[in-house]
């Protein structure tokens, strides 16, 4: 088993591979435009579940990819039938997946290579090894969804839509603020604040590339669930945080708000030397129920069909592979996972002190209907 520090550093080195970010070097604070009064902010521009993908997928999915609702429907009801007996039966199965048997073959991702972090500090048979050799990587979610086209980047629709909606939809505007920063290359004690922002991202003249240097206001009325302070440190330009429970906001369609509850989440972010960009991951144990409910509520059978994701089949896989947060009966309620992240620097603006009339925090939990 690698010790925690070497795992983190090796993992971060992996993140550097294939990116435009150069190896972190000690940077002078004066060179870092976004760092003011010991504070620097970043805004999320890209997110994707941490899946190790080979070009043709044959290494991790030697038996091919999973079949989805369209294929399962055809197999179950080759002669059609009634709406109640077919269409509504499948919709019921998505919401109450254990009501009936599911005998379809489910293909889990295979192999030894995976992305993420060593969350439990152990190395066991179920763990992966990172591409650069770090052992003990915990990412059972990869096993569950790695052979489902929906999630595979860049063409899987979940991956594709996520990339689009992280940029375009204010609901997903995640801000990361580092405070108490003396040096962006090495600092043993920084505070990492997570917020949700309320402003659009700014792009270059092409409209495609998010650029650093904008500003974003903190949304503090409807985003309390997503506000979190973490203790962190920076070593050789790599920010790591202590583990904490985080609700990670992530919606892929307008008007369908949702988030993933990640237990014992930790950030591992490579900070570009001049502080204009950052790239890394958040890893932890994602609550199986919120993961599944997110897909059922915010990802229709139709959209699942795009990428071969059968919700009832996936439900079983998630529960079969869950490896964290046992309940009182010892049933695992969460699954190890990681999310790849990219950021650009932004100036985070905090709201002015509120007057009583607009202070939602001062309102009673249940208030009379406003007429």
């Amino acid at each position, binding site marked *: 088993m690698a010790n925690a520090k070497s795992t983190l550093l090796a993992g971060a080195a992996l993140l550097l591979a294939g990116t435009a970010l150069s190896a972190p070097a000690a940077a002078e604070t004066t060179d870092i435009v976004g760092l003011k009064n010991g504070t620097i902010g970043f805004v999320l521009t890209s997110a994707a579940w941490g899946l190790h993908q080979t070009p043709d997928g044959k290494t991790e999915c030697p038996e091919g990819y999973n079949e989805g*609702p*369209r294929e399962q*429907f055809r197999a179950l009801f080759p002669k*059609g*039938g*009634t*709406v*109640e007996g*077919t*269409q*509504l*039966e*499948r*919709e*019921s*199965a998505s*919401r*109450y997946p254990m*009501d009936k048997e599911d005998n379809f073959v489910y293909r889990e991702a295979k192999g030894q290579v995976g992305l993420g972090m060593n969350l439990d500090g152990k190395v066991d048979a179920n763990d992966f090894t990172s591409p650069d050799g770090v052992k003990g990587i915990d990412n059972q979610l990869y096993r569950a969804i790695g052979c489902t086209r929906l999630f595979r980047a860049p063409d899987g629709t979940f991956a594709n839509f996520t990339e689009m909606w992280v940029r375009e*939809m*204010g*609901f997903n505007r995640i801000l990361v603020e580092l405070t108490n920063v003396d040096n962006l290359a090495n600092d043993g004690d920084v505070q990492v604040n997570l917020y949700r922002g*309320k*402003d*659009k991202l700014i792009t270059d003249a092409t409209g495609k590339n998010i650029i650093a240097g904008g500003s974003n206001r903190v*949304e503090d*009325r*409807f*985003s309390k*669930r*997503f506000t979190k302070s973490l203790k962190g440190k920076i070593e050789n330009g790599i920010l790591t945080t202590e583990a904490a429970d985080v609700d990670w*906001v992530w919606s892929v*369609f*307008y*008007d*369908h*708000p949702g*988030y993933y509850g990640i237990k014992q989440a930790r950030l591992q972010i490579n900070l570009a030397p001049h502080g204009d960009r950052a790239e890394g991951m958040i890893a932890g144990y994602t609550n199986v129920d919120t993961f599944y*409910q997110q897909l*059922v*509520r*915010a*990802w*229709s*059978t*139709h959209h699942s*069909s795009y990428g071969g994701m059968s919700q009832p089949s996936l439900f079983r896989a998630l529960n079969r592979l869950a490896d964290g947060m046992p309940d009182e009966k010892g049933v695992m309620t969460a699954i190890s996972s990681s999310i790849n992240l990219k950021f650009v620097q932004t100036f985070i603006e905090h709201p002015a002190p509120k*007057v009583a*009339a*607009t202070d*939602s925090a001062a*309102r009673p*939990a*249940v*208030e*009379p*209907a*406003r*007429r």
Partner: protein
Amino acid sequence: MRHILTLAGALAVGTFLTTPVLAADAARSVIPAEREEYARVPMPANIHVEYSELDGPVFATPEGKTLYFWPHTTMRNGVTADPKNQSACTNEKTTHTAGLMSPYPPGLELPELDKRKSCAEVWIPYVAADDAKPVGAFGLITRKDGRKQWTYDEHALYTSYLDKVPGDVMAATTGNMGSDGPAAREVVTAPSAIPPGFLVYSSVSGRQLLTDKNLSVYVSDRDGSNKSNCDAACTREWAPVTAAASAQAQGEWSIFERSPGVRQWAFRKKPLYTHTLDDGIRSMQGSDVPGWHNAYTQKAPAPPAEFTVQDSITGTVLADAKGRTIYYYNCADDSVDQLACDQVDSPPAYRLAICGGGQVERCLRDWPYVEAGAGARTLSRTWQVLTIDTKTGHLAEPGSPGSLRVWAYKGQPLYTNTNDKDPGDLYGHGNGEFIANRNGFRAFILRDEFSR
């Protein structure tokens, strides 16, 4: 299916109309004294304008039945509804799905065929006399059975069996469920009497006034009659809605000179502004500032007094007395007729599949109805107390075994979801086919802060 909500409804202090308590049968619509004015247009003798609670002035038959149209719509797998100057809504009863929506194939047998109505029984063509003549935008087409049918702007006109009293818009409101909703019927609203540069948008809170760029328009308590007290510092946050040199006052709309050469619009004598800090269209953010309010041409009837408003991760939601988010059920079938399956007389199979995997008991456990207290009374045509059979969801006789008095919005029972534990939770939102745009439950979102 009824589009009972717009996607970005709004609520703020004082947003809803204060509703007088009606007789229990709510025999008439509750229309505020400050109602939306409409532009006079040429109309046939047998069409007039009624006031609706949610859509403002609407065209109606002599009996007060609201008129609807069914615009040609591209679905996932084909098109349906009425091409211009044609009616696709016939007396022939459809028996199988059309496969217009993905991923399910066409040809599935529809539920309860013995009770199923034809399109023309649900959406009754507004037939004209043989000697009727076109008037203004109202025209005529000939149906396949030889009868003449009225049109408006080349759309065939219908009435709904759901509408019972003049001004009812029980079958639809203006708005949509997005591209994956059904091919919806829309209310034929009378043109609003608003000057160029403004729009009116039907939200759950009322007819919201916007600029023609969909920016929210606000009024201030500090202003006087046709007088602005918003000084230079104030205008950095509140931009006066200026009137062009050629603009003319009309009806409830006036223009005053706020400073030499700068003319500002006022509505009902209240100066109008946009909020420069709003982060998008149809915003409610300005109404968080004390003394400032979104402007409405007509406010919607108020919900029951015991209901509450809660902050959620997406904005504000309507909730019951305990703070539990309220949901409505939304459904349209996949037949070529795109008929509603969310009404109290619809086959329950659609709803039961989503709320309980086909099991009534599980539905009642996971999606309990919003019960109306013993003293609760119908407030308006919009907010009614219904007695329903909890097993079928159909209307029931008061006091009958298995019946329950529940709150309903536009004749549609309301629910909570047991996954919601804390006020503002909305874990049931979007649970259904096509993210509940076609068959499922949607939260009663009053103010959508992020998806406008």
